[in-house]
């Protein structure tokens, strides 16, 4: 049975339903690809979901597909095909390297592979775009909407009055579908204009012309004369010539160099926002787009302006003002914003117990379309400041909770004018500072800026809230001196702008230091791969266009006030009872430099095998060293960034910071093995203080303290030794027990041995006896054999004699008979007797042989019988 079972195999289980039978998705779980193709005839839009039933990603995507199907089932046919089942048609015809694969068909056009995120909203958006690849641009405002979008747009103008199917329209439609195949490279939107007047807005006159809109560079018209008018070509042309002012990064999850390639182009601003592709409006995205356009708007091209206006004030009824006018106004405004008006504001104390105050610089900052007469005033109008304060208090509740030593800035829109916003930069000061508020120059020790003299003096109000004299400036306010428009061309630190959906890629934000606790998943960071630094936009401030602008400006100016962001491990909590102090970015300085102890600091990473196997040595060390004078600490460098000067390039690294000479840290030499004696010697060597001066009272005191430490150490040692002794006693007891057990066993064994020996002897005797009987039997047998032989011989003789006698008798009888016969017969009788003689002798010979055989077998039977005995 064993060999049979070895060959037992079992074919794969038969496929079963992957989607529930109630699902709006048709589930061809036997891989009936032919039927799937057949189904396609009946529906305009079809989505195929090719899956493998064992595939985790297919299982995860199943729900999403079902969700989309439930929303679109009346317009789209959803077909799932098991493309793994090896008897199925699908498996035989298609060769996929991964699952699931999603293919879409728009009538006969397809397949369009969906390569976006496996999330219902994204899939639905994509399906909808396959359903209507062309947007219908019916009016001027729709046109402006279309053009102001951050994603590149292609417009076709087709005159439908002349014919129901104008020439080239189908090709244009197909190219829109075609672009969806390349959608993972970046979305291009396609629109169609049918109204001549609308087409004229973008100077399209001929039906059939195709237009690629660009914000910064001049827009293009498809060159019919150079390139053939085909769907592929239009798509290719748009892809090659499009403008990417800001683009989405959507890593697909497989191995990819996307971030590598993008970030190596230079410093990048990564903006994380929660994005719902199905939402009608994206206010935050519009705001970011505005900043991006401004940032790239180098030559203030005509084309850029209408979009800006449209984005900036969608509510403004004044839009109809002519384009050139707006352009003039804008450029004028930009030059003026260099002179904002600012005032210092002391905020009311939120909690009366608090010993701190927030001090803010409040500035009125106008960018677009501001009434020029007001901006020209070099100092602040009191009313305006009050208006600003109102807005400020209503909107920036966050500032009251912030208690920090850093300066934080925020921008917010004015309630009164859609064209201006305010900038407030705040920091917290202790109350006793506030009492010297009249000389608050000491609070902000920052260089004055040139335009500070424009500030309005004598506006100090001592009621709270009050506006303080603004002689001193907070560094962040430098930014107002820089202009965002076209900044990308003026700075040598040009940023590339990227968007990431924080619903999908928040992990990147977290790794750049975004707070894990926040509910609002908005975050912005500038990553400079080459310099290996990144800067983070303060998460306490809401992510709006103005804060982004300031962030970009701060990055771009020569002496950037931005500080390299150090990511800190938030999961570490201080444990008093831990023998090894866990240091983080935030506690590094306090633990290492401010503590009154010698500090031994281990740089480690959990994943590094060489670090983890040293844990026990450091624990022993920490338990040994006198805790009053020494701290054994460690820092996980994977989760905690440190200032450059404290970084290390190998792990583990052991640094010793001697007390009172913390700046003279020493590194444990790498060529020595890390063990307890070596570490102790290392510490001893470097913590030795020069004690050459004569012993004073203090020194005596020190000595007693030390001695006391020593005593307690020795007491601990004694405790340890006691427990060691008790362990030894126990072990001794155990051994004793084992020994007596062993002795008992030995005794038993001895007894057993004796018994065995006795048995052995009797056995030997027995065997001797047996041997003797055996010999005897053998002897007897031999004798018997001899006797038998004799008997045989005797019987042989007897036989011979017998025959002789018979012959004799016969001859006698013959003679007696022949007495009467004729004498001639005598000759013949002689021959007969000779014959008889011969046959008798042969008969005796065979008889002899048989007998010998018999004896042999008897003998062997005997001996074997002996053995068995």
């Amino acid at each position, binding site marked *: 049975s064993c060999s049979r079972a070895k060959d037992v195999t079992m074919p794969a289980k038969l496929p079963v339903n992957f989607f529930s039978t109630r699902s709006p998705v048709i589930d061809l779980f036997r891989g009936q690809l032919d039927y799937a193709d057949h189904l396609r005839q009946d529906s305009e839009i079809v989505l195929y979901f090719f899956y493998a039933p064992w*595939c985790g990603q297919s299982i995860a995507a199943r729900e999403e597909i079902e969700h989309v199907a439930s929303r679109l089932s009346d317009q789209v046919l959803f077909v799932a095909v098991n493309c793994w089942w090896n008897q199925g048609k699908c498996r035989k015809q298609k060769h996929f390297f991964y699952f699931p694969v999603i293919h879409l068909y728009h009538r006969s056009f397809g397949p369009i592979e969906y390569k976006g995120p496996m999330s219902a909203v994204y899939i639905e958006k994509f399906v909808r775009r396959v359903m209507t690849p062309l947007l219908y641009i019916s009016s001027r405002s729709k046109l402006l909407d279309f053009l102001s979008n951050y994603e590149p747009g292609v417009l076709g103008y087709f005159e439908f009055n002349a014919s129901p199917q104008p020439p080239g329209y189908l090709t244009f439609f197909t190219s829109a579908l075609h672009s969806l195949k390349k959608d993972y490279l970046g979305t291009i939107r396609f629109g169609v204009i049918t109204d001549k007047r609308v087409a004229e807005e973008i100077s399209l006159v001929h039906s059939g012309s195709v237009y690629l809109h660009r914000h910064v560079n001049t827009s293009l018209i498809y060159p019919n004369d150079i390139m053939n008018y085909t769907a592929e070509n239009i798509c290719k042309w748009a892809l090659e010539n499009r403008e990417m002012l800001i683009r989405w990064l959507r890593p697909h999850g*497989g191995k990819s160099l996307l971030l590598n390639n993008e970030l190596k182009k230079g410093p990048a601003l990564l903006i994380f926002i929660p994005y719902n592709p199905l939402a009608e409006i994206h206010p935050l995205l519009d705001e970011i787009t505005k900043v991006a356009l401004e940032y790239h708007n180098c030559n203030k091209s005509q084309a850029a302006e209408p979009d800006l206006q449209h984005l900036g004030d969608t509510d403004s009824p004044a839009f109809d003002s002519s384009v050139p006018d707006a352009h003039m106004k804008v450029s004028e405004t930009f030059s003026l914003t260099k002179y904002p008006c600012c005032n210092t504001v002391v905020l009311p104390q939120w909690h009366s117990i608090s010993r701190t105050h927030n001090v803010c610089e409040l500035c009125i900052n106008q960018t677009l379309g501001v009434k020029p007469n007001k901006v020209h005033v070099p100092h602040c109008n009191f009313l305006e400041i009050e208006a600003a304060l109102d807005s400020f208090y209503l909107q920036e509740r966050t500032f009251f909770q912030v208690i920090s030593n850093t300066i934080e800035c925020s921008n917010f829109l004015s309630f009164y004018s859609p064209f201006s916003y305010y900038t407030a930069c705040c920091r917290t000061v202790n109350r006793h500072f506030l009492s010297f508020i009249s000389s608050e120059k000491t609070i902000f020790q920052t260089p004055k800026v040139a335009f500070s003299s424009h500030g309005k003096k004598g506006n100090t109000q001592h009621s709270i809230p009050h506006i303080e004299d603004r002689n001193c400036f907070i560094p962040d306010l430098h930014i107002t001196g820089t202009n965002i428009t076209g900044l990308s061309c003026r700075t040598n630190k040009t940023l590339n702008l990227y968007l990431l959906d924080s619903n999908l890629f928040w992990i990147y934000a977290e790794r750049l230091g975004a707070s894990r606790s926040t509910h609002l998943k908005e975050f912005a960071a500038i990553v400079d791969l080459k310099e290996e630094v990144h800067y983070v936009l303060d998460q306490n401030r809401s992510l709006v266009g103005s804060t982004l602008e300031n962030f970009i400006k701060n990055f771009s100016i020569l002496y950037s006030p931005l500080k390299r962001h150090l990511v800190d491990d938030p999961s570490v909590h201080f444990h008093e009872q831990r023998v090894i102090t866990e240091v983080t970015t935030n506690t590094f300085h306090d633990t290492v430099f401010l503590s009154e102890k010698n500090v031994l600091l281990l740089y480690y990473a959990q*994943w590094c095998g060489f670090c983890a196997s040293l844990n*026990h040595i450091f624990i022993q060390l920490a338990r040994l060293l006198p805790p009053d004078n020494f701290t054994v600490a460690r820092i996980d460098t994977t989760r905690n960034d440190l200032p450059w000067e404290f970084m290390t390039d190998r792990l583990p690294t052991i640094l010793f910071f001697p007390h009172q000479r913390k700046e003279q840290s020493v590194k444990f030499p790498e060529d020595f093995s890390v063990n307890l004696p070596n570490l102790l010697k290392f510490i001893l060597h470097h913590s030795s203080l020069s004690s050459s001066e004569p012993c004073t009272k203090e020194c005596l005191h020190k000595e007693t303290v030390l001695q006391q430490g020593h005593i307690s150490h020795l007491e601990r040692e004694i405790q340890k030794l006691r427990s060691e002794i008790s362990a030894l006693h126990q072990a001794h007891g155990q051994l004793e027990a084992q020994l007596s057990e062993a002795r008992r066993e030995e005794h038993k064994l001895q007894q057993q041995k004796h018994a065995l020996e006795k048995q052995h002897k009797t056995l030997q005797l027995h065997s001797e006896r047996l041997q003797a009987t055996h010999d005897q039997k053998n002897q007897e047998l031999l004798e018997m054999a001899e006797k038998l032989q004799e008997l045989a011989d005797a019987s042989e003789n007897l036989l011979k004699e017998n025959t002789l006698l018979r012959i004799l008798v016969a001859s006698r009888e013959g003679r007696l008979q022949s007495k009467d016969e004729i004498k001639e017969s005598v000759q013949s009788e002689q021959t007969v007797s000779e014959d008889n003689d011969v046959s008798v002798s042969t008969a005796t010979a065979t008889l002899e042989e048989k007998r010998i055989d018999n004896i042999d077998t008897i003998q062997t039977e005997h001996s074997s019988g002996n053995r068995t005995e």
Partner: protein
Amino acid sequence: GAAMLRWLGSLLCLWALRIPAGTGAAAPGLDVASYRERVRAMFYHAYEHYLESAFPYDELRPLTCDGQDTWGSFSLTLIDALDTLLILGNVSEFQRVVSVLQEGVDFDIDVNASVFETNIRVVGGLLSAHLLSKKAGVEVEVGWPCSGPLLRMAEEAARKLLPAFQTPTGMPYGTVNLLHGVNPGETPVTCTAGIGTFIVEFATLSHLTGDPVFEDVARKALKALWKNRSDIGLVGNHIDVITAKWVAQDAGIGAGVDSYFEYLVKGAILLQDKELMSMFLEYNKAIKNYTKFDDWYLWVQMYKGTVSMPVFQSLEAYWPGLQSLIGDVDNAMRTFLNYYTVWKQFGGLPEFYNIPQGYTVDKREGYPLRPELIESAMYLYRATRDPTLLELGRDAVESIEKISKVECGFATIKDLRDHRLDNRMESFFLAETVKYLYLLFDPDNFIHNDGSVFDVVITPYGECVLNAGGYVFNTEAHPIDPAALHCCRKRKEEQWEVEDLMREFYSLKKNKKFTLKRASDHGEGERAKDPEDAPSEKGGEKRNFKKSSHSLLSCPSQSFNSKLAVLGQVFLDNT
């Protein structure tokens, strides 16, 4: 050469084509706890059926619901699964099995056993169970961890293997009879891994029992391999242990060689041994030079370095995990992502995968539920916390449950092309595959202890800190506590020195001369023998080794871009 070039060309093309075709972005938020529970259920489904239908045989046959002896007759699955029980938190069953094993397992049997398999599964399993037994609430002897019934069993099993090492080269035979020693006429050809996969278990044994013979034979075998590497620094697949001639000259990182490299690194970590590490680093250089193409590792001729098989083997998937242990996380992740695509294609890793053809290799289409890729995922998840690694775990759970779960356990996949099943469940399924999966989904498991908690044990040799993390897994996933190696005889010698030094801390007038002298000569005494041992057969090597600017026993810090190297994103080394 031409063939190789052409082949390389197709390889690169293939990748250029395949990279953009990834499957959508990672679904955010994977329910780790529910997957952990599913892994636990997998374990018990297989374990209970083994006990019911197969014990005391070595393995369960899941299709016929019975048992068979495969690698000896040691109730192998039970020994192998023992520490997994503890990792799953089942203390009572652990205790029960310990007593069952103590009574039931006998190594005085007339069985021809693989030296390698017996070491990694039986000796390794018993050692780790011994070291974990206190944590599992087993009543231990006073001398623990330096004595104990499981340790004695491990030692006994290991002693049965020692006769195999009695060869002119010191490299062991592949098979030994547990009762009679090496059989006359035994083949002298052993695979490289069968020679170099002893140091973790044998050094642990020597440190715990005080008998140096185990560590000595293991080291001698390692050195013999090192001495016989080719001029370009590679080792082949099989060698004659009598004549030291290479019989199979394919060099790679997979089958036949794999755990040799693994044990050089793990030995170096466990024993803080620079010599072992310097050997590995030399090999690593040669492997990168000759076998690495586009983050795949191929098979090459060990003397010429020409590609002999453009194949990825399921067994090679341990490599990224090993790389992460020494800090080469970026490369590890890139290779891992390559391997992961193969899993996505088949729902498992075929024993051989032809890289340029993108398909399985004839007669090598099976997947016996091996752990290697999951093992790497667990190590890499420690280093990167990349959710992609959890996704591999998710895929593994879904695949194994969907494809190989049968009434009586989990069956080996005989052919990944059609998912036909075979009547076997190897003991490593419970020892490794399930263990690594569970650990991937259980970041708070005691095995992942980063040193923030520990146990103090009083032994007759003094006080001892144990269970402070840093467990070194043997190649059968049996964890060894590195602290335990410093617990027994060696500890005593150190103690007096430490006590003398401690006295210095409490004297105000430090005997400066004494301290300085001690400080300047520290390490010299004990490392003095090191340069001698260091690999120095080839000229100049010794100097290079000494010159290296950093300690060999260290990892590089992670680069800045590692912050963003998650969800499949990889970065090229130089800017």
